[in-house]
């Protein structure tokens, strides 16, 4: 049975880094302005040095980057077919056989770069597959709003230089994007913010805020699943409606009136949320309420939405799928032309319904992203340490930004960060592995 939900992270990565067996390369000079592929902020100001062939974040890292850069990928993990060691060529040939024989393959990504996504879509086109991303449940909470009403949004450098007010809706910004406040809404120098910045948190204020923000932070305790009510109320108040209730979702109306007054007074306000944290039924309606409030506030002033995501290459997958097929994931190529259906082509639903008879899971960034359990034969192309015990085929992958150059899109969908090669590996990039499978399938279909 299928158990995985989104990009389910194992409680701990199973893979234990082992020292490289070859002679450590000569110590190389630390590299600066290194891009970090491991969350949607795509910080590109890290300093990284190599120690025994493994990259070590020397400065400007966060806990996540330090951990995921340092995983050595040169350990014993090699390709496997049905649990037995195999050469990469044999494993890729077996993967091609499985996909060729399948009548409905499902290609599920959880973290590959632009080149990898291009190869994945070409493979999907060739094999008549369905394409989805492990984080797509969260992504479609936003995409359904984009496709129904749209929004006014902003990007990280605008937030850093312009935002005097941040309202966070039910989101653990620090937990998901550890350097957000340091880089975008903290003490960093800004072009247009001279006074102090103010932050409001609907839900608990996250731990780890910079002092200057924590001092001026206001938290309104509210159940995330009731954010829709909160924003409906704010919209009604903004529209000048009289409300005959004293509390909404447990929050005194006066508190919301104060918040709205603050939002109206902002010179450039930002409303941020991570759809991944808004995991309740029909969260898209709450998000639409947020976006419509932001639109309304722009009748007189300036306010912008900041949907936070981009981790595990999810924005990258959405971008490439959109420009190549016309649709932002959950696309089927089974009929020759792409067909989009965010309900029907949801990977989890398809697997639960037994509608896919082969699964290819590809994840080159975080080995804690686990492939879905499935009765269908599963091909796992993953960073060493990715759970693959049940896989029919496992091929270890190189990581973009460590072992090869590549591009990933940031949370705001605007900036594609150029990632560098820092270290050697014997593993293939996702793009190369997927292209090899495509070649092995040939023109037969």
């Amino acid at each position: 049975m299928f158990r995985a939900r989104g990009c389910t992270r194992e409680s701990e990565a199973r893979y234990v880094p082992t020292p490289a067996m070859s002679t450590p390369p000569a110590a190389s000079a630390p590299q600066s302005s290194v891009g970090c592929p491991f969350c949607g902020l795509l910080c590109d100001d890290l300093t990284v040095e190599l120690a025994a062939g493994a990259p070590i974040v020397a400065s400007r890292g966060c806990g996540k980057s330090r951990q995921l850069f340092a995983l050595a990928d040169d350990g014993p993990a090699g390709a496997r077919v049905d649990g037995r060691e195999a050469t990469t060529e044999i494993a890729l040939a077996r993967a091609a056989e499985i996909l060729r024989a399948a009548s409905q393959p499902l290609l599920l990504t959880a973290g590959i770069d632009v080149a990898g996504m291009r190869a994945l879509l070409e493979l999907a086109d060739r094999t008549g597959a369905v394409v989805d991303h492990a984080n797509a449940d969260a992504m479609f909470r936003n995409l359904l709003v984009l496709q129904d009403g749209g929004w006014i949004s902003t990007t990280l450098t605008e937030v850093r230089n312009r935002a005097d007010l941040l309202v966070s809706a039910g989101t653990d910004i620090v937990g998901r994007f550890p350097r957000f406040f340091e880089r975008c809404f903290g003490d960093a120098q800004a072009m247009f913010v001279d006074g102090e910045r103010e932050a409001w948190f609907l839900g608990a204020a996250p731990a780890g805020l910079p002092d200057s923000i924590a001092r001026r932070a206001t938290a309104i305790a509210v159940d995330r699943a009731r954010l829709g009510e909160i924003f409906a109320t704010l919209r009604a108040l903004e529209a000048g409606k009289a409300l005959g209730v004293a509390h909404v979702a447990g929050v005194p109306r006066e508190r919301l009136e104060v918040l709205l007054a603050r939002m109206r007074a902002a010179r450039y306000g930002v409303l941020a949320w991570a759809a991944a944290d808004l995991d309740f039924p029909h969260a898209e309606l709450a998000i639409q309420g947020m976006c419509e409030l932001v639109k309304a506030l722009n009748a007189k002033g300036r306010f912008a939405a900041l949907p936070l995501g981009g981790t595990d290459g999810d924005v990258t997958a959405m971008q490439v799928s959109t420009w190549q097929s016309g649709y932002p994931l959950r696309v089927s190529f089974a009929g020759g032309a792409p067909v989009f259906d965010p309900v029907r082509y949801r990977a989890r639903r398809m697997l639960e319904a037994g509608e896919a008879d082969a699964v290819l899971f590809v994840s080159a960034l975080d080995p804690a992203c686990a492939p879905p359990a499935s009765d269908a034969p599963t091909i796992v192309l993953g960073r060493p340490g990715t759970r693959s015990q049940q896989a029919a085929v496992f091929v270890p992958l190189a990581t973009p930004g460590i072992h090869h150059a590549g591009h990933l899109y940031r949370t705001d969908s605007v900036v594609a960060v150029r990632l560098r090669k820092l270290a050697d590996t014997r593993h293939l990039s996702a793009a190369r592995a997927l292209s090899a499978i495509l070649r092995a399938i040939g023109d037969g279909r």
Partner: protein
Amino acid sequence: MIRLRGGCVIDPANGLNGEPRDLYLHEGRIVAPPAAGARIDREIDLGGMVVMAGAIDLHTHIGGGKVNIARAMLPEDHRGDPVARGPLTRSGSGRAAPSTLITGYRYAEMGYTACFEPAVLPVNARQAHMEMGDTPIVDKGGYAMLGSDDFLLRMMAERADQGRINDYVAWTLRASQCLGIKVVNPGGISAFKFNARSLDVDQPHPYYRVTPRAVLQTLTRALHELSVPHPLHVHASNLGVPGNVDATLATMDAAEGLPIHLTHIQFHSYGTEGERRFSSAAARIADAINRQANVSADVGQIMFGQTVTASGDTMAQHRNAGHAHPNKWVCMDIECDAGCGVVPFRYRDGNFVNALQWAIGLEIFLRVTDPWRIFLTTDHPNGAPFTSYPHLIRLLMDRGFRNEKLAQIHPDAAAHSELGRLEREYSLYEIAIMTRAAPARILGLKDRGHLGVGAAADVTVYADLPDRERMFSAPEYVFKDGELVARRGGVVKVTQGATHVVRPDFDRGIEKRLREYFDRYHTIAFDNFAIADDELIDCGSRGPIVHPCVREGR
């Protein structure tokens, strides 16, 4: 070597107007007739057919963030036009914001061999090049957007030396791998971030106190002094606003005689006469273009039906968002660099304003006398998808057809327009100028847009059909770099195009100031901003073609 025998060659750059000629294609180039006995690998008889250089679209939104927002926002746009995978081609979807692969195929099938994305935000240039890299067959290029970026506005507010600004402009061209510079609503995208809702040509920016006129003067001068071939590509102030003709004329004036290109000028040619306070100012605009040899324009013709507007002009797009059809839209402030707005729109022939917009565009085409300075665009997809070009060509070439269509639009709009009295019909020679020779010349592409010896072997061959729409929809043969890529409206070979760029010299001292700016204010590192050639190829380009920056007399 391929011999194209006996076609009627229309090659305005070389003064040929339909004379039967043999053309020889070898190793991607047009070559001189070989010596007798030379080996000809393939010969194609083109007797009676019309031969032109591959067409060039100098303003089409085919790649970059706002186009992809339009795609993602409008699944209904694609559902009506699914494209299945073929033996040679990938699947995708068409219509107003087609997927990239389909965009490349359809341009090639229409005889186009080069397309230029006019709104590349420098910070989003990678995405533009990636999408263009996934747009096969045709060559591509982009114009980098400046004029609402805080770096330039700060320099101008500090009254920086023009030479330093030139360095910044040249650095931007290089860093973003672009061929030209575009300004969109000069200063206005930035002003919108400061909550300004309009910015007229002589109105100071709310924060920097710099006027749009000063931005225009500074950038036209920069490109002139850097000898960049393509003039400043200008999306003027007050797009879509009744009475904006005055701002458009002021914009021309701001160039002070230096070359300036006004894009989608139809959207900037509106008066305020009549009971609806909306009227055609096409005659005034056309007169101004006719009078000023430094001015060129593309039209941005609208066609009736559903499309989507995608623009860097957040101020105008937010103003027009109430007209969104279907009712959804996006505006975005971007990286202290620029912005974008995406508003789906349906132009209706029974709507007075839309009908008059249609007539105004055609009026401008017909009233501007010099086809070297007026270009055929729909501002794809803002006025209409690029696939409507054959229809537009017929409207220009066939007065009877045009008047038939005029009779179908809102009667008051028809009555308010002088279109019905304009007798001009474009000739094939003039169409060849405005879609080939002139775009190549104004972009500085010396070996494109013509069929002389040494030119790139980008060749389009049409059956000479009286129905010009049919003729231009599906050319008989299309060659790209000497290879047959399309036949009778279908792709027969998929190739990859190059990226046209310019790289004017500049003093690298500007990078010190840029680095400080990035370190202090930006969320990406200066070291990671510029796109190197190997990265451009990773993005999907065949590679850059660098065009020289040398100033020449006309």
